[in-house]
């Protein structure tokens, strides 16, 4: 089994980056997180727009997303900035993240006496965390410790022909190494339930797959009404797709062909290895937040139209579906799967992606990392996402 060099965390997980995170418990704390990030630019701020006015499923999802992002092995240490009166308490986040054994500290702005005092203390903590993290050295780790998250966004007619089938071969390789692959975007599985059920490890997981996809279909109809066909449709028939099943197959092919070992909820950390299905929205940035919180140290993102977005703490490899787009957006694209249209085989492109994945796991930067395409954390809500 091949090895890569990573950072071994106290809970035995392996990071491929050594980031120190600053997580606001609530959007009201973003300003202080920004002050700290400007004082110590090496810190990785996880800006987001939520944390209060949450209830029910949304509260559960948001707490889990923030806690599990903190637990992600790419984070060496975490500083939580709370306000004090919010619904999703900083204390809860700090305790949840600390269960992974990594260093965690909490500062509540109301207790610290305002923005400037909190930021000054926060910057001190971050500098100490960074000094400690800098003493960590990369050590050999097996690929079985790797979790690969998958995403496709801004798809075109060739995403399902070039980029997704190539990535599917890489997903199979990760599973064959004993690693974990997370396939999500439930709306893009509609029409393929019987195929995915057949690939489930047992009847219980098969039933969960069926329920998850049926729920996504029902929900899409509820939310969009007559417009549901925009999402649940072969798409543009000019693209050559003859049925919704064929279109969805082009999406799920990026998850490869292995047995489905577990179905997890949005942002949940799987207890099994191998191929995992995560219930989640099709919208790119919300989906990536869930995939990162589920523990992915690395993501592969296939795109036809060309989406440059990365993620604050997880390297994202961009795979372009056509040479035209790759050439036009070469600053953002890591791999040109469009070379298949010029005669390169799926296996050759899969091999290119696998080699890059191994290099990135060892520390090479992706284009999204170089471009600091970190964006703002978008967490899925129960109110209107599909």
């Amino acid at each position, binding site marked *: 089994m091949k090895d890569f060099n990573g950072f071994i965390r106290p809970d035995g997980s392996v990071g491929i980056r050594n980031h120190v995170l600053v997580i606001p418990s609530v959007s009201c704390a973003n300003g202080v997180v920004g002050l700290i990030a400007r004082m110590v630019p090496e810190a990785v701020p996880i800006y987001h727009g939520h944390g209060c006015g949450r209830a029910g499923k949304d509260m559960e999802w948001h707490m889990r997303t923030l806690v599990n992002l903190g637990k992600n092995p790419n984070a060496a240490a975490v500083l939580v900035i709370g306000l004090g009166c919010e619904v999703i308490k900083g204390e809860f986040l700090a305790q949840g993240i600390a269960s992974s054994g990594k260093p965690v500290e909490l500062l509540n702005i109301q207790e610290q006496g305002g923005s400037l005092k909190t930021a000054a203390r926060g910057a001190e903590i971050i500098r100490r965390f960074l000094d400690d993290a800098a003493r960590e050295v990369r050590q050999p780790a097996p690929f079985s410790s790797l979790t690969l998250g998958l995403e496709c966004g801004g798809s075109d007619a060739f995403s399902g*022909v070039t980029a997704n089938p190539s990535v599917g071969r890489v997903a199979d390789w990760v599973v064959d190494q004993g690693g974990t692959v997370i396939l999500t975007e439930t709306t893009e599985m509609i029409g393929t339930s019987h195929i995915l059920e057949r690939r489930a490890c047992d009847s219980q997981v098969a039933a969960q797959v069926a329920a998850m996809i049926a729920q996504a279909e029902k929900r899409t109809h509820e939310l969009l009404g007559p417009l549901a066909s925009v999402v649940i449709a072969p798409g543009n028939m000019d*693209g*050559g797709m003859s049925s919704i099943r064929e279109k969805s197959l082009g999406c799920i092919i990026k998850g490869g062909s292995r047995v489905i070992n577990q179905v997890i909820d949005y942002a949940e950390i799987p207890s099994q290895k191998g191929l995992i299905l995560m219930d989640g929205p099709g919208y790119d940035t919300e989906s990536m937040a869930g995939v990162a919180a589920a523990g992915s140290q690395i993501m592969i993102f296939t795109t036809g139209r060309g989406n440059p977005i990365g993620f604050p703490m997880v390297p994202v490899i961009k795979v372009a579906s056509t040479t035209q787009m790759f050439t036009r957006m070469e600053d953002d694209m890591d791999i040109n799967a469009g070379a298949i249209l010029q005669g390169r085989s799926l296996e050759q492109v899969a091999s290119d992606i696998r080699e890059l994945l191994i290099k990135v796991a060892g520390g090479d930067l992706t284009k999204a990392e170089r471009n600091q395409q970190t964006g703002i954390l978008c967490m899925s809500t129960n109110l209107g996402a599909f």
Partner: protein
Amino acid sequence: MKINVIVINEMDNVGIALEDIKRGGEVRTAEGTCFTALDEVPFSHKVALVQLAKGDEVFKYGEVIGRCSRDISRGEWVHTHNLE
């Protein structure tokens, strides 16, 4: 000659056009198959790789994407007009 049709899975009985293929034009796959297109097959659309009978299952991605609603000859365009 450069290929102009890709076959994603070895079980597939349709391939995908990598360019607009004219009726009477040549279909060339990486597997070395070479035959004549009986229809115009637009860029990103499907072409039958073998002779198919009405009711036969059509495979793409190694999975069934539908059944032939009529007999389909090798080289025919496969879409909603002959697939159900």
